[in-house]
């Protein structure tokens, strides 16, 4: 099959999901509002921190993450997470059910890439409410910043946001694949939450002997720190030499993560024994 076939199939998935979402309109609205309220709670917490240390106070010494720089960081987190939640999260959750009930059989016999089919079958459109809010927050924060990103930053920013999405997706598919071996993986969401939790702050806050070790592990072993930090720095702060290295590395990390995720998925798939027959 050619690429445009895949695109057409994905278009159908997306449309079906939208039709279903619009059938249960109140549910859609409630989902959107409740995920937004989670964002507001977080925003409230950070506002409280800067209320205490002043908007010119830094989150980490010499890092330049002041209030509005950090809000740029926060909106980047929102972009990446909302995209992952909209396009991949419902599917990863469904995957373990497919395995448990044997529904994966039907996916395996289809003449398309299995990973593509199970990763993109559903779109949770309501998660994009956070994406929209992220846009507002970004505009608001940039308005309050003196620094203005140049054309390179503006072009590279969405690209690196997408890289972040790919890294998160790969991690998620690898985690979801473990349910083939474990039979059922109900703590998937918890584990995912605990891991990605580390990505939600600037990497400069991880200091000291343990912090250095954590920063190293979450940059080079499981590259969740790259996900938000690289695009957020691009947009919030002037480019510095060490950021170039990080941007180069982020490309490598994205490709590596995607490859590793696919490898784990295929390894898991080869040990799949149907549950139904």
């Amino acid at each position: 099959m050619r690429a445009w076939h895949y695109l057409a199939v994905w278009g159908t998935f997306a449309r079906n999901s939208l039709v279903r979402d619009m059938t249960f309109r109140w549910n859609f609205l409630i989902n959107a509002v409740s995920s937004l309220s989670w964002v507001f709670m977080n925003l409230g917490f950070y506002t409280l921190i800067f209320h205490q240390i002043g908007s010119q106070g830094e989150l980490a010494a010499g890092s330049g993450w002041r209030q509005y720089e950090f809000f740029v960081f926060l909106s980047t987190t929102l972009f990446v997470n909302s995209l992952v939640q909209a396009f991949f999260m419902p599917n990863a959750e469904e995957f373990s059910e497919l395995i448990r009930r044997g529904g994966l059989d039907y996916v395996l016999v289809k003449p398309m890439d299995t990973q593509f089919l199970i990763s993109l079958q559903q779109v949770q459109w309501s998660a994009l409410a956070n994406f929209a809010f992220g846009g507002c927050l970004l505009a608001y924060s940039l308005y309050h910043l003196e620094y203005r990103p140049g054309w390179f930053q503006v072009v590279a920013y969405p690209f690196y946001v997408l890289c972040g999405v790919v890294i998160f997706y790969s991690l998620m598919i690898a985690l979801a694949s473990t349910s083939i071996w474990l039979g059922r993986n109900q703590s998937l969401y918890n584990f995912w939450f605990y891991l990605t939790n580390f990505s939600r702050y600037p990497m400069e806050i991880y200091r000291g002997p343990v912090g250095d070790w954590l920063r190293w592990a979450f940059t080079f072993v499981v590259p969740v720190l790259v996900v938000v930090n690289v695009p957020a720095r691009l947009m919030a702060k002037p480019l510095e030499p060490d950021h170039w290295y990080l941007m180069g590395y982020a490309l490598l990390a994205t490709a590596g993560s995607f490859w590793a995720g696919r490898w784990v998925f295929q390894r898991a798939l080869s040990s799949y024994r149907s549950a139904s027959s």
Partner: protein
Amino acid sequence: MTSPAAGRSARFTWFQELQARAATWWVILRISIEERLVYRGDFALGTLMRFLPIVTQVFLWGAIFAANQREMIAGYTYHNFVAYYLLTMVSRAFSSMPGLASGIARQVREGEVKKYLIQPVDMITMLLLARVAHKLVYYVVAAAPFALVFYVCRSYFPGWPPAEVMAAYVVSLVLSFLLGFFLEATLGLISFWFLEVTSLLFVYMLFNFFFSGHMFPLDMLPEPWSTLVNFLPLKYLAYFPAAVFLGKVQGAELVQGLLVQVAWVVVFIGLCRWTYARGVNRYSGYGG
């Protein structure tokens, strides 16, 4: 007028009934404990993982204190912050009720409630006992990970509080368990009126996370928020016990706080009973 013999037998039957009830409760408790012990490995691992979000908080505050060269932020030193977050984990180990409300909602939706209507077992009592069993097993299994984390972080604590504060701390933890139980059970019972309460529970969870003090010490909040949280029962689920341990609430304030906590527990026991009675009246189960 009753004869002395009749009075004695009435007292006797009353005692017998209590004994019979206690026996039933004991059986339910034992069954629940054994049921819980099946997943002990998962339990221990889950407990350790629950400390992970605190790790990021500890680093965040460490970096903030270092960057702004402050001894204290909102009356807390860096060490206080770390101790506070660890103590909220203890509070939450008592007050959080995973799956309680959603479990009740499921039982209502799937018609399992009628089981309690024909059996001589009260649903709320049964759930409370199951929860006590759940918590007891949890403490046995979680004791090791908790002890480990607290031992590693012992330098962040100002030391053991005096005996009377410790006693108040334990009382407030037990009360936070009861408050958490009856509050969530009441929420779950709302499903007698609305079959789908998932989003309601999600909103509750959010509010709980923010206003119970799990995310940050509540006395950091500026007005009017600080007044608002004082009028909510949520602060007794995480903030209050931790504040008692750290000596942030003392003397008359401590006694008053405990009394308000008792009052909230009583309110929610009443509310829970009332909702259950009204809900069962409304309830209709069909089929087998």
